[in-house]
């Protein structure tokens, strides 16, 4: 069986590719369908990109999570960047402060089953998302 936890340091756009590739491998090893592995890899790509765009560096942690009768994957994207002042606004479609598409967070929320965000101005941001195997 695979390793239960993988950490990927996110310092550049190249790390975005590496994080999403590792996520896909982990999801596939856990028995996720290829379609779900694509959703997970895409979510990782968006979360890692937010780190590079807003905080310059941070990390993505991929974890196997066990529910009552199910197994899933958890993706934790954390950084010590400037943080988000208005989380509610950041979760609205079309909102962006870095000139990007601004679809990142609401889109990631739709790709995954569970979504949690904690952030304070000056304290960095942690986004945790989960997807359960069907």
């Amino acid at each position, binding site marked *: 069986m695979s390793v239960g936890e993988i950490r990927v340091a996110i310092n550049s*756009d190249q790390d975005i590719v590496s994080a999403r590739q590792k996520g*896909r491998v982990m999801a596939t090893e856990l028995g996720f369908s*290829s379609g779900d592995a694509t959703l997970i890899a*895409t979510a990782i790509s968006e979360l890692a*990109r937010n780190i590079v765009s807003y905080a310059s560096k941070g990390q993505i942690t991929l974890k196997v999570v066990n529910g009552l009768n199910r197994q899933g994957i958890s993706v934790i994207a954390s950084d010590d960047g400037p943080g988000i002042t208005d989380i509610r606004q950041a979760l609205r479609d079309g909102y962006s402060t870095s000139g*990007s598409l601004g679809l990142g967070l609401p*889109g990631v929320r739709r*790709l995954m089953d569970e979504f949690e965000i904690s952030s304070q101005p000056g304290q960095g941001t942690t986004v945790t998302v989960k997807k359960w195997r069907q």
Partner: protein
Amino acid sequence: MEVPILKQGAVLIATFQAALSDADLNQLRMGLVQQVVKFRSRAVIVDVTAMDVMDSFASRTLREIAHMIRLRGAETVIVGIQPEVAFAMVQLGLTLEGVATALDLEEGLAYLNEKFKTTN
């Protein structure tokens, strides 16, 4: 990462790989437009069959490529978006509005042939 660009008559065919970084995509955007100018190409086919993830940056870059090439008076067709990738794009809210798409390279070439026929 090198993206092979093939010249086939008036059409340029760029084949994207799976692991393109943002820097690769940016480089490709400039490279493609320069080649369109150099070869006086009338169309570009971007083959994304191998791309297993199309996130917001990649789709924005594709849209920008298509718009830049349009400004040069040429046409862009994106071919080979995989069903799973299409599903993820829709979930993410990404669109390629105003950009022609086709099932695969063959369909893309057929689309362009038809288009050139009617405009000539």
